[in-house]
């Protein structure tokens, strides 16, 4: 403590001020500052801040009352804005009516549906599952919007009361729309604060998140509370989306990205403090407006002013106090025995994969008379692309799968890897530099994780997202990083062991081999002391710490390992397309999709990597179908699968958090001759499934529903489910 201020706050504040001053001095535009221009800039900043505050309020309300941080908040806004456009502009409804239908009816209904179908079941889920599912909802909502309202028609959402009506401010005009936005945002924040702090339902809402059972005993109704929160949060997202659309244009990606700024604002209030979140939003708004007005970053940093939110998030993360290690939150029961892949099983699996890949790409396999033939260059191209993405996906296995930490920036690390490789081996294509890429990406991963690793897992997720955004706004567009030298190949063909991998089939096999090496390394890593330690901190950080494991440092190491793998994968990704533009194409949404797909596949098992290899195979298959003609239906099906697949698969995690590969493995492993343990487990489970006979329970007849209720009361089982007819009867 220095003068009553925590040291971390002081450090972050002084770092922030220093950075602001340096940036301001270096890039001062030299425009005269008059009170008028200053005032106008300030009012624009406050207006922007108000819009973000609306999103942030929704986030904070849902988070404080349900414990789920809603990554889909922005996408709800997108959906609402498009729906509003449809009703108001396309069908000519009055704006007030359209607004009422969307914000007053549709949004709360959406919130309640999401809560009842999905969110309620996430209460006890791990952070990984919670975040994956909300991200999946985000991706799904955006896909639906893209499918219903195709991107080729230009659309505009008009200002309420037009842009030209408003209060005269001298040099410019304050349109009613903006004034209303400002007032509404403040009103919402104030009323939410009042609701949460001063009303009975608000107290119940906050109590439920701390201890659901205890709150229920005191008369709160957890399900009503969570539905209310989701309805409210969804309404705020919808209103924000509709009101911001006239300013930003009706583009799903742009509108969705607004939410990242709201994340930074929410983080400014430590995710739970509403007034601080609103102040954070205003701060970002003011900084954004004033940097735009007074500073010029030059063409090399032309997007730099957009990275204020990620930067603010960084300073917030530095300033926040170390999180306490939580105890007593662990659910003890696991249904199934965990089994590690044996080293020789890993070797066997990898060998099978390499052979299969060679067979497919070389056309050695015959499918019942239908010979797919060798893949052509187009199939190989898409297979190569997908293979590179699968490599990037593998980098998430130790991080998300074992240590339970989130990383939304695998593509940013991959892009950094590509950048390093371009600088080291851009002329020669010497493949041995790839090892150096791995070494140089590790410290970057550690650096990104370092400030947030001492906080709760959610901050690491936000931090990686902010990092991804900052990289794509500041780092990748810089001409020194990725020079734009006309067209043509800038990434050389990789040269390894005296072979230049310049033909697509050879490169495909090289990547498959690297993939197999990654998988095998992971199999060994999981059996090592490091793998054990990472899984231990996933299960209980508090317990790991009391055994002497430095939890923060351990997390940082996992990030370093993951970043290193992603960097190496990035080299292959960039080499596939051969063009530096591909690195800038590393956007957040593709990153989300990779993370989702890996999570849905079953990210905790190294062999899940083999699942990912099916993507290139499917892709090649789809292209072949297209060539064959008359299979539009199948092509459409594949199309739908690629658009909605990852999202839908992840929703499956609500019921099966371990992912698809886990279930597939359970079906598959009893076939393997050496897995008598798997066969025994299945047999034991089947034996357990049989319901006991009435006689075995020492009863003469089944319980009547009244008796069941009486017993529940007696045992204090506070379930308000009405027992079904014949409850407790034997089915046999």
């Amino acid at each position: 403590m220095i003068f009553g201020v925590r040291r971390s706050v002081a450090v972050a504040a002084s770092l922030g001020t220093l950075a602001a001053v340096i940036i301001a001095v270096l890039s001062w535009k030299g425009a005269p500052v008059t009170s008028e221009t200053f005032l106008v800039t300030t009012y624009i900043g406050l207006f922007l801040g108000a819009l973000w505050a609306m999103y942030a309020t929704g986030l904070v309300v849902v988070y404080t009352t349900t414990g789920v941080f809603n990554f889909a908040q922005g996408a709800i806004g997108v959906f609402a804005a498009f729906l509003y456009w449809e009703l108001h502009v396309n069908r000519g409804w009055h704006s007030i009516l359209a607004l009422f239908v969307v914000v007053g009816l549709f949004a709360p209904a959406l919130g309640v549906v999401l809560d009842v179908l999905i969110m309620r079941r996430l209460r006890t889920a791990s952070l990984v599952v919670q975040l994956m599912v909300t991200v999946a909802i985000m991706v799904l909502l955006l896909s639906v919007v893209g499918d219903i309202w195709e991107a080729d028609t230009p659309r505009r959402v008009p200002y309420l009361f037009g842009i030209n009506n408003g209060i005269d401010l001298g040099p410019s005009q304050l349109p009613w729309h903006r004034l209303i936005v400002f007032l509404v945002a403040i009103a919402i924040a104030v009323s939410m604060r009042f609701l949460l702090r001063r009303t009975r339902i608000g107290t119940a809402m906050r109590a439920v998140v701390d201890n659901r059972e205890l709150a229920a005993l005191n008369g709160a109704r957890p399900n009503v509370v969570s539905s209310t929160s989701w309805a409210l949060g969804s309404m705020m997202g919808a209103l924000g989306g509709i009101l911001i659309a006239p300013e930003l244009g009706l583009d799903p990606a742009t509108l969705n990205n607004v939410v990242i700024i709201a994340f930074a604002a929410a983080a400014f209030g430590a995710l739970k403090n509403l007034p601080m979140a609103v102040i954070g939003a205003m701060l970002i708004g003011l900084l954004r407006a004033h940097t735009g007005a007074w500073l010029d970053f030059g063409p090399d940093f032309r997007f730099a002013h957009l990275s204020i939110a990620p930067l603010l998030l960084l300073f917030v993360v530095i300033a926040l106090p170390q999180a306490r290690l939580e105890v007593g939150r662990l659910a003890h029961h696991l249904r199934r025995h965990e089994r590690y892949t044996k080293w020789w099983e890993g070797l066997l699996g990898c060998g099978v994969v390499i052979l299969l890949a060679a067979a497919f790409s070389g056309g050695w396999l015959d499918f019942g008379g239908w010979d797919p033939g060798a893949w052509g260059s187009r199939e190989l191209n898409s297979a190569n692309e997908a293979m590179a993405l699968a490599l990037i996906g593998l980098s998430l296995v130790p991080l998300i799968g074992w240590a339970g930490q989130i990383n939304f920036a695998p593509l940013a690390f991959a892009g950094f890897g590509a950048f390093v490789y371009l600088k080291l081996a851009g002329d020669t294509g010497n493949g041995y530099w790839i090892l150096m890429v791995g070494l140089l990406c590790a410290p970057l991963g550690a650096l990104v994780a370092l400030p947030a690793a001492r906080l709760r897992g959610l901050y690491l997720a936000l931090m990686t997202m902010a990092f991804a955004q900052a990289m794509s706004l500041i780092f990748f567009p810089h001409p020194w990083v990725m020079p734009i030298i006309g067209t043509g190949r800038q990434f050389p063909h990789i040269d390894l062991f005296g072979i230049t991998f310049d033909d697509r089939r050879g490169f495909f096999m090289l990547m498959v081999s690297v993939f197999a090496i990654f998988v095998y390394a992971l199999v060994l890593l999981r059996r090592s002391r490091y793998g054990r330690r990472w899984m231990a901190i996933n299960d209980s950080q508090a317990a790991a710490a009391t055994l002497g494991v430095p939890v923060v440092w351990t997390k940082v190491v996992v990030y370093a390992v993951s970043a290193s793998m992603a960097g190496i994968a990035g080299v292959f990704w960039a080499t596939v397309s051969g063009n530096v533009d591909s690195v800038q194409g590393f956007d957040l949404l593709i990153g989300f999709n990779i993370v989702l797909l890996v999570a849905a596949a079953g990210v905790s098992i190294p062999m899940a990597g083999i699942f990912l290899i099916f993507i290139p195979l499917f892709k090649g298959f789809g292209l072949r179908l297209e060539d064959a003609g008359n299979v539009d239906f199948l092509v459409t099906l594949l199309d739908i699968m690629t658009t909605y697949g990852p999202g839908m698969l992840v929703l499956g995690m609500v019921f099966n958090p371990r992912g698809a590969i886990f279930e597939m493995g359970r079906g598959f492993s009893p076939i393997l001759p050496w897995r008598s343990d798997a066969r025994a487990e299945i047999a034991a489970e089947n034996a357990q499934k049989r319901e006991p006979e009435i006689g075995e329970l020492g009863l003469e007849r089944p319980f009547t529903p009244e008796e069941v209720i009486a017993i529940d009361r007696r045992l204090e089982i506070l379930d308000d489910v009405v027992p079904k007819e014949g409850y407790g009867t034997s089915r046999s």
Partner: protein
Amino acid sequence: MALLEAEQVVMRFGGVVALDNASVDIDPGEVTGLIGPNGAGKTTLFNVVTGLLPPTSGRVKFDGHDITRSTVAKRSQMGIARTFQKLEAFNTLSAFDNVRVAVEKNHRAKWKHRRVSDVAHEMLGKVGLDEVADVTVGTLPTGSARLVELARALACRPRVLLLDEPSSGLNEDETSAIGQMLLDLVADEDNELAVLLVEHDMSFVMGVCARIHVLDFGKIIAVGTPIEVQADTAVRAAYLGSDEFRAAYAGVDE
């Protein structure tokens, strides 16, 4: 001098005072008891001593050093180990691997001349879990998972061992086996081990503890030998009306 001392520890959560100037000291070579009604602050005291909670005020001293500001991992390396009232075992790891994580972390400092797996097997043997070494802990019964935590704590080769209700989930035979193991551990002078035991099973506490601290509403209301504590009027008053205690106590009085 006591090996571990908590001095005048105050722990406040908002308006609730969980610990109110609580002082506890424990010596090597004996088991010290910490008893009190539910919500008295026993687990909170454990969390303060192990560093999971920073106290509002007060100090924690280990072997003469002030460790109030040390991290959890640092305290563990110095020799403080614990188990948890609500299970914190590594559910997805096998019992053997649970213990291995602890041995590996403390190998260089404390088990230099022995193989990791030997130590891990020995610790599992001590708590009687050799047979389930390869079973995933999440699938074990609660009592066994508790013993895994104990084996894990022993694998840190602690000088101070804090046990939070080790007997819950165990039957009488298992409980008395654990009691005997604790007595053997502290009796072995090479270990220089001090044990602090939170327990609701009064016959267990009275059987193994040399001294007992009684905590009530965050305050230490009595310290003494089991016989002194049982005779203490403040203790009896604190427990009056507590069915749980009366039931547990009945066995001891008779």
